[in-house]
């Protein structure tokens, strides 16, 4: 019983940490982008402020049952995936035990599918609202997802085959024992995964899904108030999840929170930098982009992993 | 007066003679007498088959002259099967065409006489033991077939009959020449004695005789290069006659080929050639059938194809193969009969008799089109119907002989068969009928005939043992000719 209490407490803390980190990264990015476009830009905590404003809205409209469920799907997916990501190495620091990784070390294939759970739920909600823009946004999002999944899967399969395991925990232990980060032991898979992460975050070059000017922020265009707030928090938790996943798989996993923060922030900056300099791709260009060099790199990584 | 095989021939000839006279007094007699004759045929075959089952092959001498000199009639399992089949088909055809009138209302006296002659001639071929006598019966069948083909006064009937006559006279010339050469070499015309003496003939002459027989009888059993006449004859003859052609006349030709191949000469010489001929016939016939627009011509080509497969089975020559051939002939007779009968009424008033004319026929003639659909399902060889078993046994016999490429071709051809039969069924069931379709419902006798055939198809399909052991005995009797020769020749010792 006592272990269970710790686990629940740990779960709540993990969610809060993930939520906080996700939001602040969003704020920092907005600040940096503004600085690059030499304007002042909002405070780092702008996201929190927006969230509070949204949550405080008294009346909000919803378009039927699925519209009501859409934000719940996202937040559920975010929290569930969070539960199965091993956030920190079971190391010395006192608070390591708080970050629970449920008994079966988080299986990679389960994660691949769970991430889709969230976006499918949102897509259904968007469809129910009846707004054509949201439907177009959803189709673009799903098509782009097919695009970047290929290099991502190639990278993951290379890892799985090489180390004969499908769980993240084992890959972390391999990196811990060998001391060599996966980034260096099979660089091609890492590069392929990195390209895939560009698509995953739906940041500037691949932000056609919610293209602000054209589609009035795509799938979420009909959601206001609490719904939008829940969606935003879900989105930021997802950002944190993806970052920790990459850190665990390729950067040797973190031993302590600060180390985790540094690594995740570094990783997060790559798509942001890339986004600043690239114009927005059309959907088929994005798909062709992902099926081009990233897939080739992934295949090379896979071949190396096999032989 | 005990029933003997000669009744098969004597009674119908007498009846044929009486009909013109009697019909002077009362018009209907022309219709009733053939019925009596055919039912008497059924009685004879029933009695004789029972007698054969307990005493073995019956050999009856005619006019007192004993076997090698006089003509003798032989009635065993093998000939019995053919005779019974022919009399059943004959009876059913007569019953189906009871209401049959020529164009005007006068009952077609000539039609009934010719029909009776056709069936009697074929039964004659089947039960005679003398080779020249078989030739004479072949000619009787041929001549009555010419006149039946040209029965309708229209233009095409005469053309089809003339072509048939032209080719059939070639066949009679060749068979007569072969019989003559056989006589000069062996000095006898009796099949049983011939089989004992045939090895005396020098090899090259024996082969020539064999080739003449194959070509002569090949014309009758519609082998590939020789069957130019067949599609025309089938399509121009009246529908019931088409069923008799498919069910009876072709069987006569094939019986003669089997008797020549198995009893007189030794089969393995010509087996290979027959096999290849049969294969080519099937392929070309089925391929031509798929392109046909007229229903009866399509049925003609399909029955040529079926006969090709039977010829292949004969070519293989083993006892199983002969059993499969007999089973296929049985199936072909009843299924093709059903198909011809049902098309007869479905296309009763249409002149061109094309498939397009059968559009949406199922709405107006539900039972008839059901019968046609059942027939096409059976002939293609789908399981619950009898066609499947005969195809299965044929393939098993071919598999024993390791002829896999041939099996592949036969199966490919049966896919072609599926296409054109189901296409017709599709036209019948799944198109809207145009109003002009005449709604002349067939009489009760036609329904009875078709119902009996359909019941037979399903009965044999569900429980094939009804006739398989009977056919095994016939196949055994053909392939082991010693018993046949014994009973015929021992006659004159007694």
């Amino acid at each position, binding site marked *: 019983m006592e272990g269970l209490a710790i686990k629940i407490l740990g779960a709540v803390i993990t969610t809060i940490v993930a939520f906080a980190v996700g939001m602040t990264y969003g704020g920092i990015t907005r600040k940096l982008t503004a600085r690059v476009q030499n304007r002042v830009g909002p405070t780092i905590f702008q996201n929190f402020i927006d969230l509070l404003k949204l949550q405080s809205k008294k009346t909000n409209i919803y378009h039927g049952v699925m519209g009501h469920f859409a934000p719940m*799907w996202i937040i559920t997916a975010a929290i569930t995936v969070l539960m199965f990501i091993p956030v920190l190495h079971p190391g010395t620091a006192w608070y390591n035990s708080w970050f629970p990784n449920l008994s*079966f070390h988080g299986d990679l294939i389960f994660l691949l599918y769970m991430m889709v759970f969230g976006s499918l739920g949102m897509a*259904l909600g968007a469809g129910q609202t009846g707004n054509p823009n949201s439907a177009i946004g959803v189709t673009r999002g799903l098509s782009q997802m097919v695009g970047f999944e290929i290099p991502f*899967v190639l990278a993951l399969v290379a890892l799985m085959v090489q180390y004969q395991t499908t769980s993240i925990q084992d890959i972390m232990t391999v990196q811990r024992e060998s001391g060599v980060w996966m980034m260096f032991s099979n660089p091609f898979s890492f590069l392929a995964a990195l390209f895939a992460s560009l698509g995953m975050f739906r940041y500037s070059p691949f932000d056609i899904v919610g293209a602000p000017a054209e589609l009035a922020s795509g799938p979420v265009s009909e959601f206001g108030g609490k719904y939008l707030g829940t969606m935003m928090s879900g989105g930021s938790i997802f950002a944190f999840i993806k970052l920790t996943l990459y850190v665990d798989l390729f950067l040797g996993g973190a031993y302590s929170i600060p180390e985790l923060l540094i690594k995740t922030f570094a990783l997060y900056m790559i798509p942001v930098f890339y986004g600043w300099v690239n114009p927005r791709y059309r959907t088929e260009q994005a798909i062709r982009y992902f099926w081009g060099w990233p897939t080739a790199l992934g295949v090379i990584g896979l071949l190396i992993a096999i032989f | 007066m005990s029933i003997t095989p000669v009744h098969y021939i004597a009674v119908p000839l007498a009846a044929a003679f009486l009909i013109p006279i009697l019909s002077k007094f009362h018009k209907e007699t022309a219709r009733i007498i053939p019925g009596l004759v055919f039912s008497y045929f059924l009685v004879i075959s029933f009695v004789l088959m029972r007698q054969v089952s307990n005493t073995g092959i019956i050999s009856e001498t005619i006019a007192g002259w004993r076997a090698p000199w006089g003509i003798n009639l032989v009635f065993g399992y093998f000939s019995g099967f053919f005779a019974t089949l022919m009399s059943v088909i004959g009876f059913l055809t007569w019953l189906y065409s009871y209401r049959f009138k020529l164009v005007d209302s006068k009952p077609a006296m000539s039609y009934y006489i010719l029909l009776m002659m056709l069936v009697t001639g074929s039964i004659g071929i089947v039960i005679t033991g003398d080779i020249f006598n078989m030739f004479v019966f072949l000619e009787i069948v041929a001549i009555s077939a010419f006149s039946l083909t040209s029965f309708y006064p229209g233009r095409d009937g005469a053309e089809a009959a003339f072509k048939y006559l032209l080719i059939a006279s070639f066949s009679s010339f060749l068979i007569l020449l072969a019989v003559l050469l056989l006589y000069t070499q062996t000095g006898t015309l009796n099949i049983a004695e011939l089989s004992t003496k045939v090895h005396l003939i020098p090899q090259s002459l024996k082969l020539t005789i064999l080739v003449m027989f194959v070509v002569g009888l090949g014309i009758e059993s519609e082998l590939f290069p020789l069957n130019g*006449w067949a599609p025309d004859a089938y399509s121009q003859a009246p529908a019931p006659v088409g069923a008799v052609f498919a069910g009876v006349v072709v069987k006569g030709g094939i019986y003669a080929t089997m008797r020549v191949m198995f009893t007189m000469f030794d089969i393995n010489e010509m087996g290979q050639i027959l096999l290849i001929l049969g294969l080519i016939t099937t392929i070309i016939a089925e391929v031509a059938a798929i392109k046909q627009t007229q229903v009866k011509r399509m049925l003609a080509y399909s029955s040529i194809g079926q006969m090709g497969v039977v010829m292949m089975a004969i070519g293989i020559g083993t006892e199983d193969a002969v059993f499969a051939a007999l089973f296929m002939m049985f199936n072909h007779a009843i299924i093709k009969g059903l198909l011809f009968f049902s098309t007869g009424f479905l296309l009763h008033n249409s002149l061109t008799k094309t498939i397009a004319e059968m559009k949406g026929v199922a709405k107006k003639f539900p039972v008839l089109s059901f019968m046609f659909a059942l027939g096409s399902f059976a002939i293609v060889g789908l399981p619950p119907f009898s066609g499947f078993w005969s195809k299965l046994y044929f393939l098993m016999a071919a598999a024993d002989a390791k002829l896999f490429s041939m099996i592949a071709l036969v199966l490919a051809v049966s896919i072609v068969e599926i296409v054109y039969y189901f296409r017709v069924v599709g036209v019948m069931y799944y198109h809207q009928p145009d109003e002009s379709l005449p709604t002349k419902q067939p009489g009760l006798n036609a329904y009875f005939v078709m119902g009996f055939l359909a019941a037979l198809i399903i009965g044999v399909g569900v429980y094939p043992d009804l006739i398989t052991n009977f056919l095994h005995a016939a196949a055994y009797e053909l392939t082991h000719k010693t018993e046949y020769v014994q009973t015929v020749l021992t006659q004159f010792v007694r």
Partner: protein
Amino acid sequence: MNTLALILLILFSGAIVAFLSEKVSKFLPSLIAFISITAAGILFYTSPADVFNFKLSMAGLNFTLKIDEFSRLFVHMIIGLSWLASMYAVGYMQNKERQGTFFFNMLLSIGGMLGIVAARDLVSFFVFWEIMTWSSFLIVVWTGADFRRTGIWYMVFSAMGAYAMLMAIMMIYSDIHTFNIDEIIAAIAEQRLPHLVEASVLLLFGFSVKAALMPLHVWAPNAYTQAPAAYTAIFSGVLSKMGIFGMALVLLSMLKFANPADFSLVYINGFIGQILAWLGAITAAIATLYALIQTDAKKLLAYSSVAQLGYITIGIAIGTPLSVMASLFLAVLHALFKGTLFLAMGAVERQAGTTDMTKISGLIRRMPWTFFVTLVSIISLAGVPPLAGFVGKWMLYEALITNGNVFMVVVVFFSSTAAFLYSYRILFGIFLGQEEDDTAHVKEAPLSMILPMVVMALLLIALGTYPGLLFDPIAQGMTVLGFENVTWQMTVLSNVWGNTVNLMYISTTIGVAFVAALLFLTLKGRKGSRNVGTKDISTSGEIPLEHENLTYQLDFFKPFERAASPLYRRKMTKIYDDLSNGLDALFDFTRKIYTGNGQTYALYVVIFLVALLIYVQNTL
């Protein structure tokens, strides 16, 4: 009277009675069909396991029918799905005419399927296979629409498959003169079957026609769309699994038992298995791509069935215990969710008139139950975690990765990701988006149609967290096939490398998180929230008019189609069209031999006579 024979008898006689009863009253055939299937089901489930074997010797051949553990799994599928479909059909076929023929053929094909699964010798296997084929043919053409392209092509492809099988049976017969499957397996073990390779390739050809593998799948989309929805559930749910059953029979029981000492046999099995697996993978990918661009919901589902069958074929073809378990699990699952989907499409077609997605949209308010059922089966089709689809997909991936064919994993993953696209397409196409004016009158489908669908949906949800319910019969079946220890627990999946996925944890976490979010949102926003229709949307300023329907239906995945355009270029049907035209011209040429001139026929006779004489003289 042996119970197995009794079951078959009930079904076949029920078919005949249903056919004749149409004359009595329009409503009777569907009732009789339902009653006979229930009777068969009760008889099957109440009698003990060992009573199911039945010997019959007829026409010189002996037929043995036996339901062992492995075929029992398929019998569950057949009886279960057809029972539910017949319950559904009572409502669905209400005002249609010619119901007699429909139920006659339905019962006949169900009987045929039971026969196939129970057949222990090749001839009865073939007999039931043909009965199943032609009875399903008669249902495919039941509506009579487009008879030539759908009906004739279906019959020709199934005939090709069936006759390839017959050819193989004859090859086996010519070697060991028996049709009994157990004797054949023994003969293979002792290498007394020289024609093994050709026979197994032909058999697999026949089965892959029915399982709609890539080059032979052309008939499937049209056939599944044309058949009435009540039957398509059985048709694509279970009838296609007969191809899988056959493949399992050949690959797992026949070739598997070849003793490994003989290198060629193991090589053959591995070699054939690999080719079949790759065929399955390519089928899955291409069929999913074609499913994306369809506008008719039933056609989309048909292509998706072809894709799902591709996954199942991969599982069977790989041959490791985990992959076979995955494929059997997926097979049963596919029967469930594809059955539900087709029944749902039938309900939509019956209520809203058409399943063409460009004509109807926004039915979620009118047909909530149908939407719920479609949602559940789509989620499990896509393989998203809480439901059972994920379990099947997970096992398939683990099997592929642990078995080392990694590139196949990528192809399968590509097709399953693309599956999300068409899953969303069908949900959005019919149920979401703005309402059409003329579908305002649409009411929910009657209870007799909703009930079976809801039962199947609940089953899918239950299997999501407790896959053990289905693992138990599969494991028993596989032990019969000879796979020794298949490790499974009630809720935990594990692969060869020891990695496990505990479904209980997943479901509880999702459940807890969902309820928490639900409470948070509904309670907090209860007072102020206002439910507005789908017309009150902010489309950058303008307000859509009342009759204007802005739902985005046409060219739904055009960008994806443009991106993957090289994959769409080669259309398989074109190849078959050219082939059939070529054959047609050849046939037209050959029939010209009969020129119609009597004299030429006479000439043929003379030439043939001379040729034969010369040939015979010098050869014999």
